[in-house]
């Protein structure tokens, strides 16, 4: 398990707007091992999606630019690799499922044509062979009437079905890493649980590492092994899923967990984190969360905290200074 499939070190990504430089992700580091599901949670603007796009080297440049860091995949640094090599890896070794399955499927090609393209591009199979493999793949993701679906266009399919096609496409080449960016946000709850179940099943079958990006804490609790909480382009807390939910450490994580209405238990006033996420580019000195934190003190406003290792979690908060080892 200790063999990491992907190691991200000190990743920084910037967006340029006019002359302004807006950092989207700063000094982000994380690892993922084979068969692990890493949940990345955070609110809009926290840099979750940018992070995942950067792994695929899909950041639009300009305006975006990866300004620093390393991304070790096998023996390769993805950030330094040639476009040709990236193109071979993308969709083959690392693939991605997006939030909106309608916009990520090509409306003018049939499902069969799009799916078989993966096989003909990456595995250089013949057209007939590709079609055959595509059909098998559709059956694996449990699409009913797979033969008929092959000849249909994306608009003829329901949202859940489209997401299944996306999953089939992403898993077609048995990638080492699957990045799922809000895979169920656009779907209804009953369909959501179908899709999550499918992702889990496929992951176990292929021993794929999954990076699951979501804002839904419930989804994380059910799917992830380890969780990274992001806020304003920073990781604030990193822990295994049980520790994170049982003993959240960072005030932001605690607030986030408390602000979710629970099904169990009586009605209470919901906890609300005051204020709103700062506008990117207007981030002040010190800890990113200091403007909304209830436990804020002098040091938080001056200096940004490093990670402290407290128990099983790593947390970026001055509260834990002296209580744990600096990482």
């Amino acid at each position, binding site marked *: 398990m200790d063999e990491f499939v992907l190691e991200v070190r000190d990743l920084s990504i910037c967006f340029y707007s006019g002359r302004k430089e807006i950092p989207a992700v700063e000094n982000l580091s994380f690892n993922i091992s084979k068969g692990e599901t890493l949940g990345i949670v955070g609110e809009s603007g926290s840099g979750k999606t940018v992070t995942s796009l950067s792994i695929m080297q899909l950041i639009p440049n300009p305006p975006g630019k990866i300004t620093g860091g390393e991304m070790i995949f096998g023996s390769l640094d993805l950030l330094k690799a040639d476009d040709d090599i990236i193109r071979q890896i993308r969709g083959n070794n690392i693939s991605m499922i997006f939030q909106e399955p309608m916009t990520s499927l090509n409306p003018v090609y049939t499902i069969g044509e799009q799916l078989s393209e993966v096989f003909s591009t990456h595995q250089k199979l013949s057209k007939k062979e590709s079609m055959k493999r595509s059909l098998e793949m559709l059956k694996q993701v449990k699409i009913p009437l797979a033969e008929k679906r092959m000849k249909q266009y994306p608009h003829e399919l329901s949202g859940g079905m489209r997401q299944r096609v996306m999953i089939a496409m992403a898993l077609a080449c048995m990638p080492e890493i699957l990045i799922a960016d809000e895979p169920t946000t656009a779907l*209804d*709850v009953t369909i959501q*649980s179908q899709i999550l179940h499918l992702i889990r099943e496929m992951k176990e079958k292929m021993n794929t590492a999954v990076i699951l990006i979501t804002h839904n804490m419930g*989804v994380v609790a059910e799917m992830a092994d380890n969780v990274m909480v992001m806020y304003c382009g920073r990781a604030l807390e990193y822990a295994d899923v049980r520790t994170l939910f049982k003993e959240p450490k960072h005030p932001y994580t605690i607030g986030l967990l408390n*602000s979710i*209405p629970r*099904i169990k238990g009586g009605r209470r006033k919901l906890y609300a*984190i005051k204020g*709103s996420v700062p506008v990117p580019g207007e981030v002040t000195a010190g800890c990113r969360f200091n403007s909304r934190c209830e436990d804020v003190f002098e040091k938080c406003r001056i200096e940004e905290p490093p990670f402290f290792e407290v128990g099983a979690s790593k947390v970026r908060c001055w509260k834990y200074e002296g209580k744990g080892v600096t990482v």
Partner: protein
Amino acid sequence: MIGNILEVKDLKVHFPVKGELIPKNVSYVKAVDGISFNIGYAETLGLVGESGCGKSTTGRAVLNMMKVNSGQVIFEGRDILKSNRNELKKIRKDMQLIFQDPFGSLNPRMTIGSTLEEVLYVHHLGDKSQRQKKVNELIDMVGLSKDYLSRYPHEFSGGQRQRAVIARALAVKPKFIICDEPVSALDVSIQSQIINLLEELQRSFNLTYLFIAHDLSVVKHISSRIAVMYLGRIVEIAESDELFKRAAHPYTKALLSSIPVCDPDFRKDRILLEGDMPSPANPPKGCRFHTRCIYAKEICLMKEPVSANLGNGHMVECHLY
């Protein structure tokens, strides 16, 4: 107060769909197909269901904002569907609507201040200085500072925009507000702020809410009673605790079991529904849910179930009862 502020009886909304080849062949999408419910004063009724089940259509039909095929919507003793324009305008002062997308529902060319004032102007409430004063009160009520009045919607964050929309709905002192997915587009930390705001306002002004949402945990938190919709029908309605403890309809059970729980140790036996919701243009015969129901029997394919009363206002439409 006792009694119901709103009574909906056998409401039907059907959208005509013209045939592609032969335009005369009109079929109907039965978005809302015979639903009845009541809402008491200062109560919150939650309306949940998946996309396409007719939740939003119900909300709009209740405000008489779309053509209703049949049924009655009785608001404080008057049938709204039979009211003329002038009467409607008066009634609408008591009924307001909050939409999901706060950007789409605010005029981008108007400042928040003038948006709020327009409402008062349209309803002839006070002269210019009184209106100004009222606008200041309103913005304060929803927790925004007065500086925001001269700003345009694009300068606001999602949560602030939703606050502005709530202020606008409150401008005419309504008794009844339909909240159509008011927090679905917001981040979790902002979502709880808005929910708390809605609850505070309800207490201070004795408001009645029809709260439409697809997120069951939010609905459970805010509602006293919950109605579950599936393909244009209310399949179950009950007190919210009762519904979560003793869900009767197989669809409600499946819906409840598919909510992701924020507890990694919690592993439940999930009821995974097969397939998707059928098209409302051509709903299955008999019970609408039989195509996905694990308990479906012969009778479910043939006959539409009638509403069964399980006591304490718990109604369910299913042949099992």
